[in-house]
């Protein structure tokens, strides 16, 4: 096993060395979705690309330093692919010949216009569903969450230092749940909002990364995936039947205290649906789960009641 991992490390190092040796390919033609700028904003009618970054810096030098530390600044500056990227500042701000002649605020973009600009290059991959997404429908745009001109976060050019701070600016009620008694380690930075949600849009409700609740939960809770010999049907259908993943006042992210939750669905008689039936277990500790331990499903031949 050690030998195997050793070979993997060596091969990886060699591969990286190879990649380092790949020469840059210089300017290439790229089939990006270039905008019809005049259609985006009538103020661009008749304008042409200046294609001279220095003329922009005559007035906007204050943003240049921080911009050059970003992925855009570096890529457009060093090796732009295609005529769009080669336009550098104008790749995003549009043809600025008129602005260079008479600088004013008339070509300021709306949030939606900025999004159209970004989609010239970024429509694919994780952003494929942007145009049909809940965020776009709610008139949130790329610049609502990202600052292209400055690197404020470790990755993804977020407008705030981290995702929780960013998403909290709109989803305050959800952020408040992150401080509850039972929660995921979001405040500690171990789980991000994007661990479960794709803010750029995803099919299914809640813009979940895997399209539905359970498969999203299984990304981290693989031990709950099973499948099991004895299934707990409501748990298999939807983890949120019992849990609120944003945070709750009850143990184990449960929507309510354990015994109360179970009696919502189990009224078999005897001890099954009673808060108190002559034992210490039901109203204490994990409630019904004090005995019915394998509540997510059991792989024991006598696990039909999830006690094994």
């Amino acid at each position, binding site marked *: 096993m050690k030998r195997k991992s050793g070979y993997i490390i060596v091969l990886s190092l060699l591969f990286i060395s190879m990649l380092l040796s790949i020469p840059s390919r210089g300017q290439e033609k790229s089939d990006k979705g270039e905008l019809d700028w005049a259609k985006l904003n009538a103020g661009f009618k008749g304008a042409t690309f200046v294609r001279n970054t220095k003329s922009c810096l005559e007035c906007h030098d204050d943003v240049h330093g921080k911009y050059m530390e970003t992925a855009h600044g570096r890529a457009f500056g060093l090796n732009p692919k295609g005529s769009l990227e080669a336009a550098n500042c104008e790749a995003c701000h549009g043809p600025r010949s008129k602005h260079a002649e008479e600088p004013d605020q008339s070509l300021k973009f709306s949030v939606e216009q900025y999004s159209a600009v970004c989609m010239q290059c970024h429509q694919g991959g994780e952003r494929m569903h942007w145009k049909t997404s809940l965020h776009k429908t709610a008139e949130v745009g790329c610049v609502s969450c990202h600052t292209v001109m400055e690197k404020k976060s470790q990755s993804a050019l977020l407008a705030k230092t981290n995702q929780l701070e960013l998403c909290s600016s709109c989803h305050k009620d959800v952020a*408040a749940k992150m401080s509850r008694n039972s929660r995921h380690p979001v405040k500690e930075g171990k789980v991000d909002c994007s661990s479960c949600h794709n803010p750029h849009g995803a099919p299914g409700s809640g813009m979940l990364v895997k399209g539905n609740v359970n498969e999203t939960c299984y990304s981290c809770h693989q031990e709950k995936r099973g*499948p099991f010999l004895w299934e707990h049907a409501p748990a298999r259908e939807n983890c949120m039947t019992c849990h609120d993943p944003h945070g709750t006042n009850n143990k184990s992210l449960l929507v309510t205290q354990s015994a109360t939750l179970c009696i919502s669905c189990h009224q078999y008689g005897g001890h099954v649906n009673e808060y108190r039936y002559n034992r210490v277990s039901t109203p204490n500790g994990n409630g019904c789960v004090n005995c019915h331990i394998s509540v997510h499903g059991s792989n024991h031949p006598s696990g039909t009641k999830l006690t094994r």
Partner: protein
Amino acid sequence: MKKSTYLASALLFCAFTINALAQDSTKVNVGITPGVSLINIDNNSSKFNEYRDLRDGFYLDNLNFNLFNQKNGLFIDVEANKVLRKDQDALFRIGNVKSRWNLVVNYSGTPHQISNKAMTPYLDGGNGLYTLSALSGITKDGNDATGTPSLVPTTSQMAINDNILAKYMSSPLVLPVKLGTQRDRTSVALSLPDFKGLKIGVNFMNEQKNGTRYTNGTIGDRPPRTLNVQIPDPIKYNVSEIHANVNFNRKFYQLKLDYLFSNFTNKIASSRWQNLFFAPDAGKDYIATVAGTPRNVSNFGQRALAPDNFSNNITFSAGIDLPFDSRFNATVALGSMKQNQELLPYSYSTLGGDLLAGVGDGKNWNDVSKLPRLRAEADMRTVRFDMEYTINPIKRLNVRAYMRYYKLDNNTPTDQWRYVTQDAANTNGTVSLLNERYNLAYSYGKQKYGIDLKHYLPFWHTNIGVKVAKENITRDFREADTDESILEASLRSRPTNRLSLTASFLYGDRNGEDYNSNVTSQSYWYDFERAKADHDNPQFLFANHPDLRKYDVSDRKRNEFKFAATYIAFDKLDLSASYRFNNTDYESNVQAVAPMANTNVPLPKPSDANVKTPGQQLGLLDDKRQNVTVNIQFMPNEKWTLSLFADREFANYDHRGIYFNETARNEPTSAAIQPANQLGPWSDPNRIFNTITDEVTSSFGMGLNHEIIPGKLRMESDFSVSLASVEMDYSGYGSDATFIGQPWETFQFGFNDPEERKYNQYIFNISLEYNVLKNLIVGLQYSYDQYSIKDWSQGTESPWVEQVGSDYFLRDTSRDNRQGNRLITMGNYLAPGYSAHMGFLTLAYRF
């Protein structure tokens, strides 16, 4: 592998790197932030470091290295936080801006502390085995008429046993055990250069999760004879995943193919724990007893832990821009989840064997050949299909239509299984016939389609929207399929540049079609002749009470109203407020029914066939929630930033249940169960209880940042409070001392309003950062963190639970003379409250 080979590879790697760097101008930034921390906490509570690792002493808060060659585009980023602590993160990223590839290696450690004060007499023998250096020494009580010792003692013997157990759980045999887990996740992601619109990425992830949680180990017959102990739960998981994706992007269309393979391995397949209460009978691996209900009880309990499993998922997505500014997206995903663990036997011990003449097969209950199959063969397949289309057909109108389909097929074979109740059998070797079960293959399919219309009005940036959707879910072996119609109306407006408003209202009406409370009869396989005379016959009488409606498949009406306003008072002041109201009503028009009207099960009193249920819906009845949030952001100038935040949520939900005797299903009018101190019949409305739970959670926060000397001295402070209270109002059967004639604290079915549960947390931080030199920043921080908890369900003392000699041995206050009334614990209040003062001194140096 030889160290020299590693060294040679590393040197080769460095040679390439240095070569890449040597001739060109390279920008290098290095930063290191060491620090010293002082923590003063009044209580060694695990909650303090639940998901972090704060300790006294020296630490390396941050280490970073950034290299960028401005000529050839090579970049290397290394960043590590909380170095060598359990919650450390490390990132290594290398790539080239010009050739557009990058490789990212990421490591993250996540501790999860559960308890620092747990105690247990169980010794970890490794591989899930928990043994005891000595048993508790309690005795069975007396002999019955046949001369066999009884597992159910008399009241006086139980008092003696309680003292023995109290001494046992206070003895040096009980030792500390650390409860908590550590997740270590490493991922490597490679993104290759785009080639004519084609981009490939590969990600490999490995995660190890190790540690110990707590769980329960039950042995013996069902309550109240269950022998229940809280025991350690070993965690030794390994997950490996490989994720590959291919993206193809063109101007008007994009394609994406994703493949994920995920493999979960549990290095410990089962947990075995020694019976703490009784030694096995001589020459046997079980304890034989005769009591009112005779049982053979195993000397060890055994449970299957999370089985090894793996899954595959392939997803194809396509998006295309179409005329009239429209777009069509489609996604198809196929998945599978499989698990084929070798199965444990029905019981750890022989339990005397399945020996009853004419019934048993003569085999021992720990013989795997008694099983209908030796492996789980669990297999599920999923199919997901999504389509979305959006178009602006005319000016100021947007239409979005979608369809979603999801199917989960369960291909796990169904077999007939016996049921050995928690490693216990009857003394004649038989086990419960009433729990002879099929492992049903639950499957379901979900379909949702909808259309959203949005009309933009020509004033105030206003739009109004209407959404209509329908979702239906079909299920195998569940009480009902469901069909929901959803209607939503929305309004967005910006009357001025400074004020924006949004509001929406959603109405959902779900119908649990033809709710069948007898669906669970399909899960039993005992035949009618064997069970027809049995009182407790869930297959041919009923299982769950017929008035129950399971809320995930029942009728449901929901109303959700949201309102939000944002006001930018002037450039420096933002105010926002929002209000949300949810009301979910599970009213399902339950009517009284006579569940035994058509039964063939002989009834002691034939007239009981006409006895009806109370006709009051049982289960979750409704759920109401309201949430109010206010946020203020004020930046009077570049030096000051003030933010204030408040959130309050009110939740109220109602449940209803009924006490009834499950062994008297076929005789609801039996005189034996009528008295108030008995469980009662399923038909008696006086056995009904209600719980109304109110949760109020309030969060407040304030942040203040000040540039005392701009660019030189900066102050940041924040204060946050989270206050939660949960109150349950319990009424009905068991709560009225007058009704039941004895104090409800000691009545075995007595229950009443528990005390309020409270969870409060206060956190205050203040820090100063001073730029001593251009590249040296000194930081000084003080933090205060207080957490308090009051939770009756975690406490060792409540009106119905009392400790006996210590936190580690609890019993019900009825002090019934059966062992199921007792619980050996690892210490409740597993994470008590704390109050902590913390000081940090850091030096951030940039090269």
